[in-house]
């Protein structure tokens, strides 16, 4: 089992990476097959941010597979964090902000689990989350930073960070420990069968997460031919050799957004928020039953979300390309 508080020794990190299959091989599979790549206790880093490019279909698949004791990290957690707690597959998240979104107020599900001591929410500043993944991506044990000093956010993480007086300038610095997740799950607009991924618009922390992790599961709106990737190699954001699984899942972020393809499904999100506000336990259980347990496929899930919502979110999603 992973200890997320511990920086992985370099020789161990390298040995794990060297043991991976890194050749140019096809790795297309189903959501169910991809879920088998994740072990109980793994540290799973989740791509995207808040309600954008959340790998929701993969999370759906992990909840259905009944994973246990996952440690989940993300730049910012939205409703997918609620579902990790409510389903019980994770009792420990590492993130900078956790609630569905400002307009819906503080997450009642998060509050129930954290205030009740059922689950752990480690809070790091947003830049610190990014620098921790980036350190992991660079193969260094830490990166220095000028944030998270003086505050109680820094104090609470003090055991995991180090303070340093800069040997060049004498300035105070915080050293942020590298995060090298066991698995990263990331949703993209396009990827080829080898795992070369193009990400339009907001990148969030995804390229760093992919590089830092020991396994990467990509879900993608579309699988495209490798020749399309090779026509514009400067648009590839995640290289194939970091990737272990490619799953084609149209609308794989629903009810969150996928840049340029669909915006958040606001009505669905509003109804969810209302349901869990009334009762964070029963409301979430009911939601999971209806949307996560009963539909046998992602397509059946989308059917329950509804055509009207899909069309509306798509129309809004494409508007980013309006001039």
């Amino acid at each position, binding site marked *: 089992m992973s200890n997320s508080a511990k920086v992985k020794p370099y020789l161990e990190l390298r040995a794990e990476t060297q043991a991976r299959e890194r050749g140019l091989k096809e790795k297309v599979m189903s959501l169910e097959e991809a879920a088998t790549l994740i072990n109980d206790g793994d540290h799973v880093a989740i791509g995207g*941010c*808040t*309600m*954008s490019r959340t790998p929701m279909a993969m999370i759906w698949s992990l909840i259905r597979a009944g994973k246990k004791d996952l440690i989940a990290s993300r730049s*910012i957690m939205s409703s997918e964090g609620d579902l990790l707690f409510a389903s019980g597959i994770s009792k420990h998240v590492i*993130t*900078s*902000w*956790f609630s569905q*979104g*400002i*307009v819906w107020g*503080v*997450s009642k599900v*998060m*509050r129930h689990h*954290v*205030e009740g001591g059922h689950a752990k*929410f480690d*809070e*790091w*500043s*947003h*830049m*610190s989350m*990014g*620098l921790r*993944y*980036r350190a992991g991506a660079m193969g260094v044990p830490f990166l220095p*930073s*000028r*944030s*998270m*000093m*003086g*505050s*109680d*956010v*820094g104090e*609470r993480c003090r055991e995991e960070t180090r303070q340093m007086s800069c040997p060049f300038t004498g*300035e*105070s610095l*915080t050293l942020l420990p590298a995060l090298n997740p066991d698995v990263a799950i990331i949703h993209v607009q396009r990827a080829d069968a080898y795992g070369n991924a193009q990400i339009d*618009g*907001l*990148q*969030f*922390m*995804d*390229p*760093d997460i992919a590089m830092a992790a020991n396994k990467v599961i990509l879900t993608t709106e579309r699988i495209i031919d490798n020749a399309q990737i090779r026509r514009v190699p400067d648009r590839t954001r995640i290289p194939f050799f970091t990737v272990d699984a490619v799953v084609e899942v149209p609308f794989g972020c629903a009810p969150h*957004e996928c*840049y*340029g393809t669909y*915006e*958040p499904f*606001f009505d669905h999100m509003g109804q969810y928020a209302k349901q869990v506000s009334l009762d964070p336990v029963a409301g979430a259980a009911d939601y999971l039953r209806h949307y996560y347990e009963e539909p046998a496929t992602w397509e059946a899930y989308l059917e329950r979300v509804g055509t009207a919502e899909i069309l509306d979110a798509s129309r809004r*999603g494409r*508007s*980013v390309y309006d001039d």
Partner: protein
Amino acid sequence: MTEASNYTASELLAVMSARLLLDGQIVFAGVGIPLLAATLAQRVHAPSLTILFEGGVIGPFIVPGELPPSTNEQRCTRKANMVLPITDVMLLLQRGYIDIGFMGGAQIDRYGNLNSSFIGDPEQPKIRLPGTGGGNDISSLTNMIVAMKHEKRRFVPKVDFITSPGFLDGGTSRSDAGLVSGGMFRVVTDLAIMGFDEQSKEMKVLSLHNGVSSEQVQDNTGFDLAFDDTVQTTQPPEPEELAVVRELDPESLYTA
């Protein structure tokens, strides 16, 4: 809307904050009042002001009526000059390119420290709030404007938890802790505009909004407020300013 005025408290907040922004500045803005205020400033007096969003956006164009639900969705990127990874947009703060960080606040204390993490004992919290997001970074690395409602429960002697550092314990304690630049610049509320004493770093009232008395501000504050020697009175919102705010947020999502 208050009885004596034709605008809501939130509209007042947006207008008063907007006036603090200068042309040519680069402003790291949260959604809600900060974004409305920054866009208002661009339209009225600061055409070359640049807005940055935490999600990784430089210089976007906000479509009226399509305000983003957070700083991290595609609505933030409309006609932006650049989008880039989150870590890199945050690092612009550390590199020193940003003039102002501009956010809302849930709880603030005498020294401008903000809490958005815990109400009550952090080990056994009464309420677990969403947390820092970029707040800790922004307030550690640049000059801050905070826009918030002026209520006694929000203006407390000492915050339960310092999520975003202001001047910590006042005096030189902020730079002693390693935060050598930036710091709280202004707190804008529906009652007044506050700054911080240069030496003690205690909050002090710089100006009162039209029709607001010193007593009213003190009554809504949980600690003894200092007042500047020459407290000004702000000019009420102009019709032009209110019109822009209402055009941007026609459904009053953030200005009800």
